């Protein structure tokens, strides 16, 4: 589709429209946040929707220029953040096909969520504050994806974390919400800790934080070996694993995944925008953006494969036992992020971004649909008190079916193309860990289908378990809610077929993604590719298809045909049930060992180190000396110190005079 841009095709100036794309949402956020009363509810949503809409339109224009027309890549400095001898840290934009794709996804989903929020947050007293936050988020996410250097990427990275913190704790009176937001921030900080070390390593070995300069010198990273943990590794491996730890935090990979399910305490629109479609994919984006570095280390890629595969399979399994509708979708998000991570590990960066894009559409759709159900039932989230809702909420039901088919990878729907590409790429990977990953992604197809259809059946089909009173008032959501669902349903169907060929095999990404020579993860697939339609037809004959059908059939059997059976199975398999309900014990371990342990360590160091050793003994019982002096001083009153200090200065001058006379030779 696009020719690979030559080096000369780089423009070094940012245009006004780039600045508007980024700063319009920021300005709107400031207005909506600071002038809540003056703007009122309507003013707040008009300002923010106007800004994000403008941002979205201009992003589409950028996408058209850069991707469709194959225009030049922009790598421009906006201002110098800090200039040091030998090192300039700048703020600027890199706009290439990868960035343009992310810009469209971010602003489009954000716009849909803005509109949806009008309906969803209608009765909330924090209406303006909410719009301010989601606009601020859009700004932060755009800064992240449009950065041309690691400092600014890190800024966006932490800024989206801040907004996520604010939005998870949006209902700040709820104890579970303020627990969840602190947890989310701290777990992300653990990831950022690794990320920052990775950035420091990149600076040390390439002398720059600017992507283009880093990539130009990336080759040097394989030449040096270091052994910070006693095992010699190349610098590339060390740096890439550190960077990937950052991605594990943001993109919620095991064991740093624990914050994402709890983040469902936030309002549903942000679960869709931040915790499904955009922010959590920042880690995937970052690895793809830095693909020239990650390609240098097979060890790091293997590490990524294994982490991603584990997340995919084991988090998907947890989705099967959840009762809260949002948590099912959250575990599904974890599992799908695992797919993207596996694709990165297999060097199929194009497939990872492809799945990121399709997932953004269908997962935002599923979350918003779940939100539609939740408000339709007056804030009921437990699927055990739902059922048979397809009659009451036909649009929500229909769009949910579309989202589900896209998620499970039904041939023709968006997720089908991206997921199959990942499965093929993993099969082709020669790296250590790829066998395990290949098994995990295949098994996950079955699991995905099982939890997805379970959700669909429990919510929309079968006997209604909604209580009588709620059912009387249950209704389809208003147009501001259903329209975004419909608008998201369209790309959930067609995005796969449209984007598959260019993203997977064409020159869509130009030079933005780099795969080492000799590693062609999609080579085999390209061989069999005869257009999207024949791939669709072929899709009905493959193993993933039958696994998917198997999962759907099992879901039908367990949750529609024999609804009493799951309870009996759970009772029969107590240990397994317990393990899944305890979420493998990660939370319990973190609370009991890490959180309590750190706090106990702090208390211990304080009590023993500061109070007992330093104050009590080390400075020769300074506390005792102090009280002793204090008891004397109490009689002399507070003038004491004042006199003393003066006496000291006068004494000093006398000392000087005396010494000066004695020793000055001249």
């Amino acid at each position, binding site marked *: 589709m696009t020719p690979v841009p030559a080096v000369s095709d780089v423009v070094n100036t940012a245009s006004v429209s780039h600045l508007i794309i980024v700063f319009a949402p920021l300005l709107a956020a400031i207005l909506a946040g600071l002038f809540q009363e003056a703007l009122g509810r309507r003013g707040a949503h008009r300002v923010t929707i106007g800004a994000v809409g403008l941002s979205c339109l201009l992003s589409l224009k950028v996408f058209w220029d850069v991707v469709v027309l194959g225009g030049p890549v922009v790598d421009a400095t906006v*201002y110098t*953040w*800090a*200039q*040091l001898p*030998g090192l300039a840290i700048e703020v600027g934009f890199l706009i290439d096909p990868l960035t343009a794709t992310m810009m469209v996804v971010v602003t489009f989903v954000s716009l849909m969520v803005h509109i949806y929020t009008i309906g969803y947050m209608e009765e909330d007293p924090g209406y303006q504050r909410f719009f301010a936050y989601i606009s601020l988020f859009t700004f932060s996410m755009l800064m992240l994806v449009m950065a041309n250097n690691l*400092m600014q990427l*890190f*800024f966006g*990275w*932490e*800024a989206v974390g*801040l907004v996520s*913190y604010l939005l998870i*704790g949006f209902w*700040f*009176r709820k104890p579970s919400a*303020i627990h969840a937001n*602190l947890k989310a*921030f*701290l777990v992300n*900080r653990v990831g*950022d*800790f690794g990320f*920052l070390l990775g950035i*420091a*390593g990149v*600076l*040390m070995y390439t*002398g720059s934080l600017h992507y283009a300069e880093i990539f130009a010198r990336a080759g040097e990273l394989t030449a040096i070996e270091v052994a*910070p943990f006693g095992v010699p590794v190349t610098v590339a491996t*060390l740096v890439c694993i550190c960077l990937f730890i950052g991605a594990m935090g943001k993109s919620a990979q095991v064991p740093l995944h624990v914050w994402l399910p709890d983040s469902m305490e936030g309002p549903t629109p942000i679960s869709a925008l931040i915790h499904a479609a955009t922010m959590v994919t920042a880690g995937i984006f970052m690895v793809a953006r830095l693909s020239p570095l990650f390609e240098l280390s097979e060890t790091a890629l293997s590490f990524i494969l294994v982490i991603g595969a584990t997340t995919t399979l084991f988090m998907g399994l947890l989705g099967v036992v959840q009762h809260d509708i949002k948590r099912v979708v959250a575990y599904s998000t974890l599992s799908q992020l695992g797919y993207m991570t596996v694709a990165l590990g297999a060097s199929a960066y194009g497939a990872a971004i492809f799945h990121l894009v399709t997932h953004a559409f269908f997962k935002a759709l599923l979350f918003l649909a779940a939100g539609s159900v939740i408000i339709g039932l007056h804030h009921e989230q437990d699927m055990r008190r739902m059922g048979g809702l397809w009659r009451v909420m036909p649009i929500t039901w229909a769009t949910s079916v579309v989202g589900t088919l896209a998620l499970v990878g039904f041939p023709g729907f968006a997720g089908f193309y991206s997921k199959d590409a990942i499965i093929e790429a993993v099969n082709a990977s020669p790296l250590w860990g790829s066998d395990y990953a290949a098994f995990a992604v295949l098994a996950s197809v079955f699991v995905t289908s099982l939890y997805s259809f379970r959700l669909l059946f429990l919510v929309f089909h079968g006997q209604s378990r909604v209580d009588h009173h709620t059912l009387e008032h249950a209704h389809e959501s208003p147009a501001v809610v259903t329209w975004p669902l419909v608008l998201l349903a369209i790309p959930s169907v067609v995005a796969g077929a449209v984007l598959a060929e260019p993203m997977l095999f064409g020159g869509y990404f130009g030079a933005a993604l780099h795969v080492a020579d000799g590693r062609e993860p999609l080579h085999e697939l390209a061989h069999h590719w005869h257009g999207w339609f024949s791939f669709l037809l072929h899709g009905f004959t493959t193993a993933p298809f039958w696994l998917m059908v198997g999962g759907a059939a099992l879901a039908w059997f367990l949750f529609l045909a024999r609804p009493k059976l799951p309870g009996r199975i759970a009772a029969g398999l107590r240990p397994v049930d317990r393990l899944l309900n305890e979420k493998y014990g990660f939370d319990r371990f973190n609370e009991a060992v890490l959180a309590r342990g*750190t*706090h106990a360590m*702090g*208390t211990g*160091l*304080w009590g023993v180190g500061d109070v007992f050793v*330093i*104050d009590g003994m*080390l400075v020769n019982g*300074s*506390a005792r*000396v*102090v009280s002793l002096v*204090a008891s004397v*001083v109490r009689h002399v009153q*507070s003038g004491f*110190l*004042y006199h*003393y*200090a003066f006496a*000291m200065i006068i004494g000093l001058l006398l*000392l*000087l*005079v005396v*010494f*000066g006379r004695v*020793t*000055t030779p001249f």
Partner: protein
Amino acid sequence: MLSLLIWLPIFGGLYVALLGSRVAPVHAERDAIAIAALTFIASLALWAGFDATRATMQYVELLPWIPALNVNYHLGVDGIALPLIVLTTFSTLLVILAAGASVHGRLAEYLGAFLVLAGLMIGVFAALDAILFYVFWEAMLIPMFLVIGVWGGPRRVYATIKFFLYTFLGSVLMLIALLWLYFQSGTFDILGMQQQPLSLDAQNLIFWAFLAAFAVKIPMWPVHTWLPDAHVEAPTGGSVVLAAIMLKMGGYGFLRFSLPITPDACRVWAPLMIALSLVAIVYVGLVALAQRDMKKLIAYSSISHMGFVTLGFFVVFAFATVPAAAHAADLALAGAMFQMISHGFISAAMFLCVGVLYDRMHSREISAYGGVINPMPRFAAFMLLFAMANAGLPGTSGFVGEFMVILAAFQVDFWIALLAATTLILGAAYTLWMYKRVAFGEVARPAVAALKDITPREHLVLTSLAAVVLLFGIWPAPIIDTSAASLHELVQQVARSKIP
């Protein structure tokens, strides 16, 4: 110009304090605000007229003082002193603006003490003569002791004496070192002392004598325990000045004395200093997590953040002599310098926030609060911004210094950077956990429900701080550019051995 900056607040402060008993507090306050504002404006003019491309001393004033001993009234500023002077005048103005709400009784004297204090602190930063420096250094303790001793909390005597003993012991050793240097070089000129060749043994002794003074002030682990006590007992203004400026005296001392006068000894002891800095960052960060008193928590957080300052100073010695890594030395010093300024803003803001709560509830216990965001949404928004800055969020000034120091530290050793980077987790944990317990949740008790949101005056003070925290987070260049030339000169200075 520098004399004006020093003596305007000193005489102004004396005027306010002495006249205070005869006029209404409102008038004293008005006068004090005017003097502080004038001083602040004068310092901005100083900054505007400063040529940042030169590393030499500017605005130099030289008058003989005690000719027999070659002691001079010698003032001047470079890119290291200048930002600290502006920080001093800025913080003083805020303290004076905020004082009215929290001080009941003897307001005029309180304001006067802070003005005098500001003049003396500017004197410390501007003095180029060792005796003049020492006089200001000791003299500034007097108004500080008075502030804590007169307006402090119930255990103020204990705290003041602990503070006094620590700083006194350090200062005496520093004085001995200065006198010894005088006998070696025949001059009290600080820049002259920096040129004096010294054997390694002599440098070692002087290094430790200086360290005693500066490590206590900053403070470094394990001589830090006076700080939490002093903060807890000090009134809000005292805490603000203590954290925002007085701690920086230690950092300034390292940059003006230890590093250039004893570079070879610094190189020898750098591993120890780096280790102590890491202890400050990790150990003290953990200790902060265990605090139940807001002021103590912020005090420990200060010590932890100042660990980045000393870390930045001493990692320089790992590559000052390696030309290829020279930019890392500049990065480390720029980061440490920026961290000093930024910590001034953020710690001032945090202590002012606690002050706002304390004025209303008369408690510093975290557990006495809960759900403050409900009655005080504006205040809670400000406090969250400062909490995030304290946790080093990019986009706030709190990020810049730590980021640079960690980037530079990585180039020395992976493990140094790793331990320093734990602040990302610990800093966020203690700050945001405190914030959660204080601000979020349902209103915990009737006293919280009755809280009133911030007054216009408090709003003004917090807005000013929020503005600088954000401005220098988004655009740190003004501060970095101001000091870059002077710090680069220092890097070259410490790279040269002074052993004859």
